[in-house]
């Protein structure tokens, strides 16, 4: 039965996404990037007041929302590096490269979004000059910078293997030699900043609604980043297969989804348990938009996908829906913490400006396009049999 699924999957792939469509997708993405670049430049020249709908009572908008959400999804990079390089689970080997490349694309997008949001983008480097080690955002800034460096190292073999130059092989061997410590450094930096993004909200006990605010936020942010990262790892592998028109191994997707779902169940218990122990379950039962959002996050985006993934009789399609729901839910959790679950000062309101939307879309499209081109032209997608052990150990 599991043999039939990939065949059917492959047929669907080739018929549903002909070459022309892929070109159109790429063209659409490219147009979005160009428009987004114009919007971004306008924002940098004209300033936040002129180009955004942000204000003193609603100071962080979709840039920060997508930023923190994207960091969680980019957890694909460190979770899959941990699975592939540190825990050496060879059965998931094929999914490691698409995930790490997605991690790099996402982190570059994160950096761009951050620069757009900064009131003084010309001083983005100040966190290197002036230190406040107690500031979660200080730690996050450093970790993102260093981890992007780690991702460059981790993805360098993909580029080097394409090069036909004589020294490329030597460099590949050097990179392969240091890959393990680099991967461990990446896992460490990621654990730190994924959890510290939760710590960031601990400084806002009077702004973040009690259903979200808990001293356990760092643990919750880390756990949900692992859950989202593994889900993204599975999806990235799946989509990569479509990009290069090659069949995927369903057991890789099923396996990763299964781990993500189990992590999700732990996350569910953590969130639910904390609110019950803190005596806040009444808030979850009150007819507020806070309660609705909170339940949606937990039931639709954690419990339901866990059921879709774990219950017997699974199919690729059902698993895919589950993975997409998990990813959406974690993105939403970051948006809730940043925007919708904030207790706003009276009179505060915000709806993103066109420039905010376009620049965000441009940056996301750029990341997607870069990833697709990478998958298409670099040795990213492996069928699983021919493992490049020399470069990935």
């Amino acid at each position, binding site marked *: 039965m599991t043999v039939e699924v990939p065949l059917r999957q492959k047929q669907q792939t080739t018929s549903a996404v002909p070459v022309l469509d892929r070109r159109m997708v790429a063209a659409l993405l490219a147009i979005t990037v160009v428009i987004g670049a114009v919007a971004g430049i306008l924002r940098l020249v004209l300033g936040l*007041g002129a180009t955004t709908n942000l204000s*003193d009572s609603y100071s962080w908008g979709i840039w920060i929302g997508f930023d923190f959400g994207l960091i969680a999804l980019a957890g694909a990079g460190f979770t899959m590096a941990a699975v592939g390089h540190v825990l*050496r689970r060879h059965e998931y080997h094929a999914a490691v490269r698409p995930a790490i490349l997605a991690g790099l694309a996402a982190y570059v997008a994160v950096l761009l979004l951050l620069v757009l949001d900064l*009131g003084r983008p010309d001083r983005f480097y100040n966190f290197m000059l*002036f230190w406040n080690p107690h*500031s979660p955002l200080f730690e996050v800034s450093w970790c993102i910078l260093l981890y992007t460096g780690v991702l460059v190292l981790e993805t360098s073999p993909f580029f080097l293997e394409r090069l036909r130059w004589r020294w490329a092989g030597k460099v590949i061997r050097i990179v392969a030699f240091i890959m393990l410590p680099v991967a461990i450094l990446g896992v460490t930096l990621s*654990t730190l900043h994924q959890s510290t993004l939760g710590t960031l909200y601990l400084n806002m*006990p009077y702004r973040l609604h009690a259903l979200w605010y808990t001293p356990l936020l760092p643990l919750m942010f880390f756990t949900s980043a692992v859950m989202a990262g593994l889900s993204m790892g599975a999806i990235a592998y799946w989509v990569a297969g479509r990009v290069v028109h090659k069949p995927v191994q369903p057991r890789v997707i099923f396996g990763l989804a299964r781990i993500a779902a189990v992590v999700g169940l732990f996350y569910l218990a953590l969130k639910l348990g904390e609110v019950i122990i803190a005596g806040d379950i009444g808030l979850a039962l009150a007819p507020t938009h806070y309660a609705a959002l909170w339940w949606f996050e937990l039931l639709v985006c954690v419990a339901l996908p866990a059921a879709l993934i774990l219950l017997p009789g699974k199919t690729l399609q059902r698993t895919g829906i589950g993975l997409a729901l998990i990813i959406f839910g974690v993105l939403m959790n970051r948006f809730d913490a940043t925007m919708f679950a904030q207790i706003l000062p009276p009179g505060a309101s915000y709806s993103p400006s066109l420039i905010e939307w376009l620049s965000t879309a441009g940056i996301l499209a750029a990341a997607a396009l870069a990833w697709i081109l990478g998958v298409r032209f670099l040795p990213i997608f492996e069928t699983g049999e021919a493992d490049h052990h020399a470069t990935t150990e």
Partner: protein
Amino acid sequence: MNEVMSRRTFLKHAGVGAAVCAAGGLAVQPALASEGTSSANAWGVLVDLTRCNGCDSCALACKQANQRPEEDQIPNQLSSDSYSFVDRRVYVGDAGQEQQMPVKRQCMHCLHPACVSACTVGALTKTPDGPVVYDSSKCIGCRYCQYACPFGVPTYDWANPLGLIHKCQFCISRLDEGEQPACVAGCPTGALRFGTRNDLLAQAHSQIDSNPGRYIDQIYGESELGGTSVLYLSGVPFAAMGLPTLDSQSPSRYAEAVMRKTPVIGLTVAALASGAYWLTKRREFLAQPEVVPQEVNHDR
């Protein structure tokens, strides 16, 4: 209502937090980095709301002292153009009578300022003399301080393409010259009083004791957030005056407790990852190095 709700639940969360911190060895120590080194002589301002007549002199004096534009225009909110303003509140008494209440607002100069703890680059600092000051040359405009401050004090200069944060700095340059803050100097009714925080607290307590009925028995800022340099006396409940009901602990205590553990967390993760690698390698070695080991249970 939200304020009350979030405070109540915050207190309950504190229990969970304490348990977690104890279990994880995260001691929530009272000495927080954001505390600075508040000396016994740290400055304070006592705002006696019962004496304020709402003339707005303080807010205008503040604008002038800080060289803000439109010096004569009375501000109605904190902004990058006005570091202080006189809020208008309507208090409805027990008998249903309405009372107009002016409430002067500005930075509270917290003893444990969350803005200082949060600031990415340490642009905000607590001086030993009490003022929470801002170094505009460091600021990157991330606006985290706006979210950390429980009073919504730091404001951003939105109109400027390279905008910065603006807030009351306790007229630090005037204090250095031995003068009072401009708002205090500009107050004609004596509703604002400048002195050391300790003296002002003592005076406020004796005022409450010797004027029965005039004040409610609470000095806002004595214990809120672990104390603030600006203190308020009022005849009506503070919540009705727009001064939020707050915990008596530093709002940054959990964040700082976790942040202090950063090196420990980092080293632990690195050690665990290395250990996990060593174990898998060893298992592979024991299960014949040529054959890729067949993992049970996880791949189907």
